[in-house]
């Protein structure tokens, strides 16, 4: 049998399919008038803790909803259930490549359980991972990164992808500054090196420092006009 080799030009973006779905999600958010935050960080940086503080403060001010992305458990969703806000848990696919981030399709699968029309702001807590979530748009209006000072100063230089894609960096656990030899100035310098002038708020979900500032940031963008 004769085989002919052929070459075909493709020029197709690897993430095009995801981006198209993200755009569809975005259209749905826009139609409902819901502002969507993609909240990203390494595991344990304090996303859920900050969400708890946020839900406490925003009660009666801003109608919040939460989509929790988690690998297998419902622990984070359980921590937030006492706030009685619209809440849905999306467990990421344990199969190929689905564990480390939410993609547009996974978020889409959670949306049917949420009444977007009753929500000013939807916060999507992404899976804890310092690289993967940054590659996958889910239809968000903004990207907020939580960074814990226990992670060291040099991470922006080693993992620039997420730091570069963030619109706001919440530098969390600053209550521990006096106990660690974390050099805040050096970290902020590295942050500016990869994302010059990016907005930042020094925060502690433990003491509440910076939480008001973060809530105002959110209100400015998410309050119904």
């Amino acid at each position: 049998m004769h085989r002919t080799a052929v070459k075909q030009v493709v020029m197709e973006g690897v993430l095009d399919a995801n981006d198209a779905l993200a755009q569809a999600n975005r259209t749905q958010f826009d139609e409902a008038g819901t502002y969507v935050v993609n909240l990203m960080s390494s595991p344990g940086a304090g996303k859920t803790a900050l969400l708890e503080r946020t839900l406490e403060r925003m009660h009666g001010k801003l109608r919040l909803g939460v989509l929790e992305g988690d690998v297998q458990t419902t622990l984070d969703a359980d921590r937030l259930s006492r706030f009685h806000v619209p809440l849905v848990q999306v467990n990421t696919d344990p199969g190929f490549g689905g564990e480390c981030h939410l993609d547009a399709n996974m978020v889409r699968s959670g949306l049917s359980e949420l009444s977007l029309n009753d929500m000013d702001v939807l916060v999507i807590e992404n899976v804890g991972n310092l690289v993967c979530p940054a590659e996958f748009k889910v239809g968000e209006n903004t990207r907020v990164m939580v960074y814990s000072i226990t992670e060291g100063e040099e991470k922006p230089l080693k993992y620039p992808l997420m730091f570069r894609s963030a619109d706001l960096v919440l530098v969390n656990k600053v209550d521990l500054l006096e106990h660690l030899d974390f050099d805040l100035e050096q970290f902020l310098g590295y942050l500016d090196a990869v994302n010059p002038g990016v907005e930042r708020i020094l925060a502690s979900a433990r003491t509440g420092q910076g939480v008001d500032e973060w809530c105002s940031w959110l209100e400015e963008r998410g309050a119904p006009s």
Partner: protein
Amino acid sequence: MHELAIADSIVQIADRHANGRRVTKVQLKVGHLRQVVPSALAFSFELVAQGTSVEGAELEMEEVPVTGSCRGCGVESRLKEFPLQCRACGSDDLRVLEGEELFVESLEMEEV
């Protein structure tokens, strides 16, 4: 491991374009800023391709270095590390021109 999800997407794209033919090579352009680990991507690709028209195909990755043009003086620079700085005036106000690519450029296939 976003390499696994990326590999999965590459295989889907190649398989769709192959339209029943056997894929022997996939040419990929990867910008340096994508933080893709080539060995992890190659490994994932081999794994995910199994049982598809892409099984056994070679994945050729061309890494695209980062270049940017200065918003101040207009000069283009090749950038090796952060902070991204204009080689002419030292400004860090640069527009990234290349280095963020992630696309399947072409396929080689066997027509049976």
